[in-house]
């Protein structure tokens, strides 16, 4: 099986690479590339993302044909794709970080700044927070409800259809931290930095 981590200059993806390689061992071949043919022929795709919504969308658009290839992979061919952090946020129609920016539009909704309640809550939301699993999702197999995952973000994805939400986390408000829509998965937290439970989730995705 070939799992591709999309390398589109979206910031630091070393931890994503290391964690997937650690889990995959001989189960899967982990490819790190922006090569369109390699993405097309892979069985699963990871879409990481760090920095701002705008910088990630710009970086995707900077690689000619990449967005079309991802659309074909996830929407037409319905193969499993996992977005992490801004990778998840880009599923939205629109994001408001830096400036209003169009997202991939895979899951209707918007990405806006977390309400810090007039400074009562620190931003970024950094650290270990518990996830409240609200939907039976294959990527949460053998992961207990209220497990801790590592977060670092200031913006949140607000999907229009609540049915896509698979987990939330409690901060200044109830934040969507995991979504699932058919073959499309996304986590706001970083499984690659969430120790053994994070690796378990990565394992679940590879085993889908």
């Amino acid at each position: 099986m070939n799992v591709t981590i999309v390398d589109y200059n979206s910031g630091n993806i070393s931890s994503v690479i290391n964690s997937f390689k650690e889990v995959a061992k001989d189960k899967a071949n982990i490819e790190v590339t922006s090569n369109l043919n390699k993405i097309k022929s892979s069985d699963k795709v990871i879409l990481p993302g760090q920095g701002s919504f705008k910088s990630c969308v710009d970086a995707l658009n900077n690689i000619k044909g990449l967005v079309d290839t991802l659309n074909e992979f996830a929407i037409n061919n319905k193969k499993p794709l996992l977005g992490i952090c801004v990778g998840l946020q880009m599923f939205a129609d629109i994001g408001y970080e830096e400036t209003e920016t169009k997202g991939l539009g895979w899951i209707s909704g918007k990405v806006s700044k977390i309400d810090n309640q007039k400074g009562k809550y620190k931003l970024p939301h950094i650290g270990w927070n518990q996830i409240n699993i609200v939907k039976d999702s294959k990527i949460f197999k053998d992961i207990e409800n209220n497990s801790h995952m590592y977060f670092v973000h200031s913006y949140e994805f607000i999907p229009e259809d609540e049915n896509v939400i698979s987990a939330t986390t409690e901060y200044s408000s109830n934040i969507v931290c995991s979504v699932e829509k058919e073959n499309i998965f996304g986590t706001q937290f970083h499984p690659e930095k969430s120790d053994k439970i994070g690796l378990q989730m990565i394992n679940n995705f590879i085993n889908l």
Partner: protein
Amino acid sequence: MLKNRIIPCLDVKNGRVVKGINFVDLKDAGDPVEQAKIYSDGGADEICFLDITASNENRDTIYDVVERTSKNCFVPLTVGGGVRSIEDINKLLNCGADKVSINTAAVQNSKVVEESSKKFGSQCIVVAIDAKKNGDTWEIFTHGGRNSTGINAIEFANKIENCGAGELLVTSMDKDGTQSGYDIELMRKISSNVNIPVIASGGVGTLDHLAEGIKSGASAVLAASIFHYGTYSVKQAKQYLASKDIPVRI
């Protein structure tokens, strides 16, 4: 609910852990990679390396350490010490660091923080503030605490937050190494003046000091010696904080 973080810090010089370690089960007490793994297996919420390599020739040793650690530890890794430029940051991140801590360079030229947070995202830019009490206020020191700057630490914290720092690592030079507890007043002043998380550092000698650090408003507490010399394990520290009703990840 978001948990308060406990961050063990390791001083690394020429690729080796500096202070002695009492752990008996270590194969190589001086190997930062093995030490970091023990911390992460023990429940550390993050790991911090402070590179205190003095000579430029040996600076590359830290990259190898970071690379090997990131293949073994799957919790966030922060690396600081001698980080001067965008290139330094880029290199550390590429080796597998999740965050980079900038000290002297951030004080001398805040553009480094502005540019790096734009380029790599605020989430990976930690600014380390070393401060010493001076009358009613605190002054920033650079170059590992050797050089005074005349800069007010509280004002600088605000300024550097606006430049895009994602977190502040605040060390009291008065308290560092004394094991008499954090400079609580300093931590309180800075964390109440900024909207980004503050990591308290410098002076931990007992588990109660960790609790005091969190109560001062810090989101995370960093400690070196108490974990390093095996006085307490990370697990003991967490159990203690939990017993004081301070939320931690156990």
